[in-house]
């Protein structure tokens, strides 16, 4: 194995998660992408949805991201998003309400759905 990845998941106003991992799975506008140690440098735009980080001890950290992007260089992965929330921090009940309130606001609705999906998959 080429080593491990340093991963940070950062939202606009705070750092959501950071640590080392084996693999990071995210979905860019071009399709799903899996990053392991030794990956070539990439800058990709992420679609609103889940990002999965598999840690060394076999656990998985799942976060929902909105308007984010992914930057990989020298075994450092930065997932940056205007909004990002870990699966365990998501409160499905309040997100449901947001979804109802979103109405015609497609972006808000998508973000709410992404979070529900992440919370549900946990």
């Amino acid at each position, binding site marked *: 194995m080429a080593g491990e990845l340093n991963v*940070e998941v950062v939202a606009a106003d705070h750092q959501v998660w950071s640590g080392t991992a084996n693999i990071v799975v995210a979905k860019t*506008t*071009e399709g799903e992408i899996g990053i392991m140690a030794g990956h*070539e440098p*990439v800058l*990709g735009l992420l679609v609103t949805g889940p990002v999965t980080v598999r840690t060394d001890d076999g656990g998985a950290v799942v976060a929902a991201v909105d*308007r984010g992007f992914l930057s990989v*260089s020298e075994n450092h992965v930065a997932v940056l998003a205007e*909004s990002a929330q870990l699966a365990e921090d998501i409160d499905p009940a309040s997100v449901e309400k947001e979804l109802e309130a979103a109405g015609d606001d497609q972006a808000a609705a998508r973000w709410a759905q992404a979070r529900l999906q992440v919370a549900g998959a946990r």
Partner: protein
Amino acid sequence: MGAQLRELRRRIRSTESMKKITKAQELIAASRIIKAQQSADAAKPYSQALVRALEAAASRSNLEHHLLEATGTPTRSAVLVVTSDRGFAGAYSANVIRQAEALTGLLREQGQEVRPYVVGKKGANWFRFRGREMFGEYVDITGKPSYADARRIADDLLEAINTPTEDGGVDEIHVVSTHFKNMVSQEVRARRLFPIVVEDVPDPLHRIEAGAPGGMSEAAEAETPAATTPQAEDETFPLYDFEPSAEEVLDALLPQYAGNLVYTTLLDASASEWAARRRAMKAATDNAGELQQNLTRQANAARQAEVTQEISEIVGGADALAAAGSE
């Protein structure tokens, strides 16, 4: 005489309660500075990573983006003025407004039309009182700015700059806000947000802005967004693969960068606002203490005078009685 003493005692009591209020305000402000600084620190990882990614994307694409480079002579500018929602902060808002006026004058001299976007009730009221048109007004956010607020402001500004000039859009976005240097020193800064100043050397306009009068403290150094934007040619970036393409990544990153810039500016201004408020309230508390001391002295003198007068009246009365008795 007795009335004067009563009046003095009443004033001492009211000064005392005023002092308590300003003292409380001072303590609140001190704790809010720390909170604002913590938010600023929490936002740092995002800013840094964003700037790095932006540099990488900008170094690869051909840089022809209206947010990156000015096209032609600017004819219209948006100026974001960051003031406070509440008073009791000394000259905080006044300083920002003065600097904004200086910048407005400067831009007008260059033949530009200036559109104010105002953050904070104090600034909004100032513009409204003078019957000036505001193109954006954002209130009730300066105490504790959230990213959503910054996003809203940035979206409005971006919409303005993305609209062609002929259709009423703007060519440049400037911001006048207060920078938190440390607990005792904050300075008002005027900066150009977009188009981003790419060169190492700040352009003439920039230098004039930075040196414009009205700063809260000593002359502003010409620290500009240039310091955080593509400038270091000697720094090499890894050859990134872009998904979907460098141009599209750049298109998506720039609005995020704008949001981040506005957000960090608001946080910086918020910390400054609380620091200014703390200082103003500390001065008020000190003054109240001094006033109280003076009033107490006066009250003591008045009390003493009253006692002396009573004694001399009694003595005088006794003398008069004694004189009357001996006759």
